[in-house]
């Protein structure tokens, strides 16, 4: 089972919306996907209540200590991908999510506040030796500030592609209990999220291959 964590202590950066969008996009090939909601705000649980589809499965995490047993149970149940949505704070649940993830996504808007807020998250990720990528989120569709933000985030580490432009479809899909790829098929927001998911999947698979090769070298 792959584990993807969305982390940053900046509120409003789009962790929950991206979690939902990516989870639904990941289900496109019939894969079983789960979301672990470690954010007491409950955005995803409420989205799930509005949703008619059984998947993605949503597990709300009351206590950070439960993250391991929850992930073990999901893996035992045959879940292929679990996405952990964390709260906008650098708490124990976020650290455990980072520690347990194959890839961490750090959503950031093109603003100084979002970039600065990533510092403790980046330190935690690097201390825990996890892979990560920034997602430039809620961006304007073009402009020199967008490219400036992209260059800046690239200098701090990987920057996932494409950038996710600020579009109403994301909020409308969330309100209607859909993923954005279900809500407006063929729309620009759906295309961007679909492409972002393919980028993330590539990194997850690459990471697994790297690990296997590393294990073989260690065994040899």
């Amino acid at each position, binding site marked *: *089972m*792959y584990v993807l964590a969305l982390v940053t202590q900046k509120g409003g950066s789009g962790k929950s919306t991206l979690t939902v969008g990516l989870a639904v996009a990941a289900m496109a090939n019939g894969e079983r996907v789960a979301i672990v909601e470690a954010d007491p705000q409950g955005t995803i649980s409420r989205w799930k209540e509005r949703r008619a589809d059984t998947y993605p499965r949503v597990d709300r995490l009351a206590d*950070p*200590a439960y993250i*391991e047993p929850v992930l073990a149970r999901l893996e035992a149940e045959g879940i292929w991908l679990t996405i952990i949505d964390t709260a906008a704070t*650098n*708490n*124990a649940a976020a*650290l*455990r999510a*980072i*520690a*347990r993830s*194959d*890839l961490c996504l750090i959503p950031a808007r*093109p603003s*100084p506040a979002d*970039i*600065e807020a*990533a*510092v*403790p998250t*980046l*330190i*935690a990720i*690097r*201390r*825990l*030796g*996890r*892979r*990560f990528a920034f997602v430039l989120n809620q961006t304007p569709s073009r402009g020199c*500030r967008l490219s*400036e*933000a992209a*260059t*800046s*985030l*690239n*200098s*701090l*580490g*990987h920057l996932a592609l494409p950038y996710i432009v600020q579009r109403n479809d994301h909020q409308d899909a969330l309100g209607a209990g859909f993923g954005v790829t279900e809500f407006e098929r063929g729309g620009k927001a759906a295309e961007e999220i679909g492409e972002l998911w393919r980028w993330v999947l590539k990194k997850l698979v690459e*990471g*697994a291959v*790297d*690990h*296997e090769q*590393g*294990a073989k070298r260690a065994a040899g």
Partner: protein
Amino acid sequence: MSKAQNVRPANDMRPARRSLAELTEAVSRAVEDGLVVRPAGTVAALTDHQRPFEQATEGPKRIEVPEQAATPTPVARSEAQNAQARSGEFAASDSAAEMAVKIAKDYQNSMLGTIRDGLNAALDNAKDFAETKRGSEAPGNVGVLGAAAAAFRAEALKLMQANVATTLDYARELAGTRTAAEFVELSGTQARKSCELMIKQADALKSLAQAVAKERTGRT
């Protein structure tokens, strides 16, 4: 009506905008600083039990660390090289130590909350019992029950001290953690220690209650 009010005076200079790239350099330095050993102050106190650097040893689907060394930009590459050169120095930082203490405090609060609830319940019971019996029993018995309440309070103080000591040990160990595997293992170990401590404390309270009851029976 004049539009003069809306016009910025010629001598009112607008502050120069700080570019995101410039800000990101500061962020990058903050992250690097956060990963490097600082032997002074509280950090030193938290890191005096540091262990040598070890690679994470995890299950087959885990992804190994070196990832960000492959960062595509020249800046990121040089950072990665620097990081590699300093890998032997990687240890707790101010931020990481703060996070470790935060997690430890979460545990402490959770443990102290449970202990406090238990003690309050015990004290309430002793008090209620004393008040109920006050009218019908000899003054000596009321004294015994008063002494029981005092003994419970004294015991509570000892238990709190034990909890604080365990939490500080945990924070110290956590600050020296370098790999995800260590972090997860340590969290599990701490959960077990907390449980064991709670059981011991529950036993201590039980024995105290039995001793008081015995003393009271002996007097009547």
